[in-house]
């Protein structure tokens, strides 16, 4: 037991030091617990949902699930064998069996099937609907949002008007999504008589995501150095020329990447489209059987989040529903996660690249 050198700055183990590291561990566990919870949810959906989407044989992706419409699952006993098949397949099978029986001169066999709604087929119409909703609403939101941000960051002078606009944006960001749903229903569905339609859903979602787009765009515009604007103006450019040539091109990547987070939000929301755009089930795809081009905008669609809601709480639960529930959740989470992850990665990259 020798203390070789004794000096006043020597580190000594002490109670307070132990306490400090204990507290740090507490904070650390808070952070990692959050991550663990997120990871657990993610893993659960992925592990249980993957079997519905992937399969072990070529082409490894369950194309039926991704490319076909939902249908009822029929379960029946036939010739001592338990069979499961989709509704359409079942009908064909029944007719085929009847024909065979007729050919053999037997009485057509009576097949009694129990059917389970939505448990067979796929979710293609939902994917299509979600994509349509996202594309349309983001187009509207980006147009309005970027224009609004340009005004706020380039033209507006500090004053009561701008303060008021900013207040409105902040407050709009806090409005619950179900209230947007009610508003969309009151204004677009009822007042403007658009009924449950893509158009109503687009505007509702666009207004909901507007604050995100405005804030993101303004931040990107602000991060373009002031020197670019001054340099351009000092060369005799007009304000609009300056914005178009010396500001927007450099802000655009930032605007787009940050707005992708808005896309994730639009894709993920259910409440606003429940009364404005989503159908529980619709046989036709959005581009089938249109009377005129205008009809395209005035039709409701199926959507992934709403489908998850329907299959997880509106239909009777049984052993066959789990496949479609987890499968849909997996596809949906995968899409949204992909969007969000690309936004986060792009932003980090962008931050590194643009250093003026």
């Amino acid at each position, binding site marked *: 037991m020798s203390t070789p050198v004794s000096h006043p700055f020597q580190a000594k183990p002490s109670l307070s030091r132990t306490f400090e590291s204990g507290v740090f561990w507490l904070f650390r566990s*808070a952070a990692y617990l959050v991550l663990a919870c997120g990871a657990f949810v993610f893993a659960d959906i992925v592990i249980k949902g993957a079997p519905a989407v992937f399969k072990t044989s070529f082409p490894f992706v369950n194309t039926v699930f991704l490319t076909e419409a939902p249908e009822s699952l029929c379960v029946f006993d036939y010739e001592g064998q338990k069979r499961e098949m989709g509704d359409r397949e079942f009908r064909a099978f029944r007719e085929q069996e009847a024909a065979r029986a007729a050919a053999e001169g037997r009485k057509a066999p009576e097949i009694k099937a129990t059917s389970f709604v939505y448990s067979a087929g796929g979710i293609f119409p939902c994917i299509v609907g979600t994509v349509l909703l996202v594309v349309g609403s983001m187009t509207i939101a980006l147009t309005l949002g970027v224009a609004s941000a340009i005004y706020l960051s380039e033209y507006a002078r500090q004053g009561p008007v701008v303060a008021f606009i900013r207040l409105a944006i902040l407050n709009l960001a806090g409005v619950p999504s179900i209230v947007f749903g009610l508003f969309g229903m009151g204004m677009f569905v009822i007042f403007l008589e658009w009924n449950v339609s893509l158009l109503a859903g687009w505007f509702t979602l666009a207004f909901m995501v*507007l604050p995100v787009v405005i804030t993101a765009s303004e931040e990107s515009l602000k991060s373009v150095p002031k020197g670019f604007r001054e340099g351009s103006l000092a060369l005799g450019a007009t304000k609009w020329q300056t914005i178009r040539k010396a500001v927007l091109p450099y802000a655009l990547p930032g605007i787009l990447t940050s707005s992708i987070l808005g896309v994730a939000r639009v894709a993920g929301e259910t409440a606003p489209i429940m009364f404005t755009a989503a159908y529980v089930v619709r046989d036709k795809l959005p581009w089938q059987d249109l009377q005129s081009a205008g009809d395209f905008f005035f039709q409701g669609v199926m959507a992934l989040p709403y489908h998850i809601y329907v299959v997880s709480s509106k239909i009777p639960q049984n052993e066959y529903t789990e496949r479609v529930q987890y499968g849909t959740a997996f596809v949906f989470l995968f899409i949204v996660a992909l969007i969000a992850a690309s936004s986060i990665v792009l932003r980090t990259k962008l931050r590194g690249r643009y250093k003026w």
Partner: protein
Amino acid sequence: MTTEPPAAAVPPPSFAIVKRRLSFFGLTLDECIQVFFGGNAFVAVVVLALITYFLFREGSQFFGQNRQNLTVYRQAGLEYVDFMRRQEQAHTALTRGLFELRMRAVVDLTERQKLSLADANQRLAGFDDYAGRFDDAIGPLRGMVADLTEVATAIKTKFTINEDKMEERQQLLEAGRVAESEAVKVEAVDFERELAPILGTKEAYLEINRALKAEFATLLQRMPPAPTPALQVEVERFKVKVQAYLDTFPSIEANLAAWDYRRPVPLWKAFSAYLFGRQWLTASFWQDWYGVVPLFVGSLMVSAVALFLAIPLGVGAAVYVNQIASAREQRFIKPCIEFISAFPSVVLGFFGIAVLGEALRSMSQVTWLQWLPGFPIAERLNALTAGCLLGLIAIPTIFTLAEDALQNVPRSFKEASYALGATRLQTITRIVVPAGLSGIISAVLLGLGRVIGETMVVLLCAGNRIAIPDFTEGLGAFVQPVHTMTGIVAQEMGEVVRGGIHYRALFVVGIFLFFLSLGINFLAQKIVRRYRISVG
């Protein structure tokens, strides 16, 4: 210098900086563009105004309709009958208490005193007699309430049919089909005459009541003793309850005597019945009630659970990432938590149904956790399940904003603290966190706003039972199923008649939510602003 400018140059007109530009309506092209962008900037304002307008457009008529609803309730005599019904229901509650007492006695006798079930029942025979007599006492009143219920319902139906006919006639008149409109027969409901059978029972009721009082007085005295001292305490408590019940009789009688179907329902009643109404009961054969309290309480409870989890975890993680974590950990944790915020709420709700609800329930059945209030959990879907998932939704919001607030604490504060010999922990707790505190508080408020407005998770996981949880169970109330404001709108809006009172009531819930969120937002901004001044 080789050049020598002219000594007195006359300014040539060449400095042409005055120029007329192309103009539309007195604005140059550039100004037009500015006006265009300016117009767009007002979109946010316009949307807010539109939201307000359309919510009120659809919702504001609710109060008039509710007043009408309450008026019919009174005129058709439903209110009168309900006075009696409440008396009956209070009795039913007492009877239930008696049975619970018996259950405990049985448990006590069989488990502690090791009696067989038959013996235990034997011992309780006297008690059973007593309970039976207690229950029977209400018989006459129950019969009367049942009879009157039918009468009142009939009056109400008559009135409703009348209303429908009047509307039909109105519509025909508007369509110009006069003859047809006159063919629609409308018989005005003569409430006086219709109510006569109900009001005629007054004497009979008083008679029943007198009998009831006498019966209870005897029953009170003949209450059999409990098998154990612990239960005897309960018995005494029960007696007090019965006495209290008896004491309400005079006021019920007074209510009935004073009741008059002609007394108008004031408008404020329509508001207060909504704001303070403890029942949300729709599509009922008897009477619909639109009271927001159970929904509001449900929302608050779910949010309380969510914040209880999200504040320590979110703020803790923010402090860790901002102050303690290494740069590599920061680069890893921050995007991951942001990533969690992208989880769609409907997926989380599904996860709650599929996994979390069941997991929590089976956990609640573990023996060594029984000390926790409310355990074991009866319902799979309840405020706790929803709250846990909402917590996961609120954490990224709180984390990101709180981390921002900590980031904004000037570095110099920290450096000064270190330079004075403070440890890292001391610096964090005494300098950094206090300096960022208002930012953290506003982060928590915004998290609350996010949680209160969240729909899908509560719709799927909160259990959707429209009732104020039983707070006598203390914290156990949190594992009871609840319904929330957002959930009710999402659940019922698809099934209601447009323009009906129920439809409008849901819009009023929307208005309530809207202003609640504005209020929370306003508060959060106020706090942040103060914080900016204090640091800057």
